[in-house]
């Protein structure tokens, strides 16, 4: 499928502590490959995959980040235009779960306020080494109102599902935005625009159209 036929491009960031399996999940999803170890990501890496979202071709542009970049060095350039975030921890590593709150704070401070988030607990195949129970992840996800899956790159569990969930939510979000934009246009015609709505839409247009020519 040629990229030009794609209906839309969804930019997705993969975030989480070092060694939770971010590069691994991206390779599993985009290339259907799996290795036990991956070279550490420095800065950011990039892959893309064209998927069929209920019959519509969509380009998933996935940005794989470095785990140690939690603070500051994750420059705004990375966050710019991100529509979805796959936040990851490792069920065999308690620390990576504990740090999720910092990651969520980081997202809140830097990403678009309506960015779609999903939470993944990786390495759920490693039964004997598990440190974080599934209901812990579930509870956290409910608190933040984000979808949650335990996944395994090694055994290819829930990988497609979690990306598809992300893509669906992004699509919903976008159609909602288009709707409000149309409302905005209509109400603008009638001169009834509210300040609140206006500012929200300005935000959308600046954040969601990052690939346009800026010259």
């Amino acid at each position, binding site marked *: 499928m040629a990229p030009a036929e794609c209906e839309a491009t969804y930019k997705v960031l993969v975030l989480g502590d070092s060694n939770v399996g971010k590069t691994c999940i991206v390779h599993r999803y985009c290339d259907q490959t799996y*290795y036990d170890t991956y*070279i*550490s990501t*420095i*800065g950011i890496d990039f892959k893309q995959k064209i998927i069929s979202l209920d019959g519509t071709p969509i380009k998933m542009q996935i940005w794989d980040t470095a785990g*140690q*970049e939690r603070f500051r*060095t994750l*420059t*705004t350039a990375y966050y710019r235009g991100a529509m979805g975030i796959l936040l990851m921890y490792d069920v065999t590593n308690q620390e990576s779960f504990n740090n999720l709150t910092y990651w969520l704070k980081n997202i809140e401070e830097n990403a678009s306020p309506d960015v779609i988030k999903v939470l993944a607990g990786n390495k759920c195949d490693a039964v004997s080494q598990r440190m974080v129970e599934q209901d812990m992840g579930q509870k956290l996800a409910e608190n933040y109102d984000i979808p949650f899956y335990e996944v395994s790159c090694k055994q290819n569990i829930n990988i497609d599902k979690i990306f598809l969930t992300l893509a669906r939510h992004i699509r919903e979000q976008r159609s909602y935005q288009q709707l409000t934009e149309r409302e905005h246009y209509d109400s603008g015609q009638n001169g009834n625009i509210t300040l609140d709505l206006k500012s929200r839409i300005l935000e959308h247009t600046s954040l969601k159209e990052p690939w346009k020519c800026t010259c």
Partner: protein
Amino acid sequence: MNHEYDWSLNYNMPLDDVPVDIAQEALVLNGDTMGSPKGRQPPLQYEEEWRSLLKEGIDLCDLRKKALEGGLRAARFRSVVWKLLLGALTPGSPDTWLSQVESDRNHYSTLKAKLRVSPIGSAEPQSDNPLSQDEQSTWHQFFCDRDLQALIKQDVVRTFPGVDFFRGENVQEIMINILFAYAREYPAMCYRQGMHEVLAPVVFVVHCDQQALLHTQEQSEVSPEIVTVLDPKYLEADSYTLFRRIMNAIEGSYLIPNMAPTSTGYFPANMKTTMNNTENQVVAQLNWIKEVLLAPNDPQLFQHLEQLDIPLQLFGIRWLRLLFGREFPLQDLLVLWDAIFADSSSFDLVNYIVVSMLVAIRSTLLKSDYTKCLTQLMRYPGSMDISIIIDYALYLKAPSKFSPPPKIIPPKVLVSTDEKNDRVHYHRRKQESESRK
């Protein structure tokens, strides 16, 4: 990504193996891939090569020239050359070298001894115990050390998965020790991801030199000073000496303004994470490269990247942090580092190499869309001729001193870079003042 960073298979040797003649092999490699007549001179005899280093004057004129021309590809004393270029040995005073080597080794062993914290049998069990919250307690230090070592190990075990040399437990332990010692000697730097891949080629080069010595010793007598300088016992200490000098020059690629990492290698958790106001040094450097070096030298490519909204930091952070370690095969990378070290102690050439690398693939970039461009830049074609990249970088830096390589398609140059070079170079000034310390 096991297969993407394909270091030369010839060097996948375990640490204890006696290697094949590195010089000969590298020369063949050189002839095959480079076609450069410069590298085809017959190799000097081992001792003769050493004596040529002793004869170098204080400005290292001949050695620098050789390094910039890619003439060290087959060198058997590359680690010694690097020490000279990086200031760990005083050029022109070979009678001081042995004492300098010894002093650096002592520095490292003292540092290591100081860092070996054993909390067991603490004199003050009331305040110094495993549950102590006191940051001065040896127990607290012990746990911090353990966390940091675990963090380092996580990256070290993943260093160049396709290269056997780095799979050896011995080498991995050496790397962890060095990175840990560095983090403690330079707490503002601590350990950051990427440092392990700056260290890796260093350990490899020191190891190769030591193996070349062992190999030569099997066939003939070797001067005692060489035996001391390349004593395999000091792989770790000698690698540390080189590593911290390289890090000194590229620390800006790692430092984060107004923030020091905690002693476990993590950044303070409660820190506000907004980064709009204070830019990272590495981002500032990349913007500088784009505006001051790329824009005037290749306005078309500059415009293209601007239009696609591809800032240099998307790929450039990795280029700079690893000194291009993932962009070229190992043997080419070492030649590139020879040139960087030889050009100036502040590694100014790095900025021009970034532009050179971009211009070298400009025709592909110019006809590529966003995705293709990024893919090219994040997976830089490994088949690029490194000598062209270096020659063009040198030309960009000093067009009056160097001529452009014939093979590169020169973009329309509007402004001479010599003028630009006169501008204040925040980076250079800072680093030069540091390296003088």
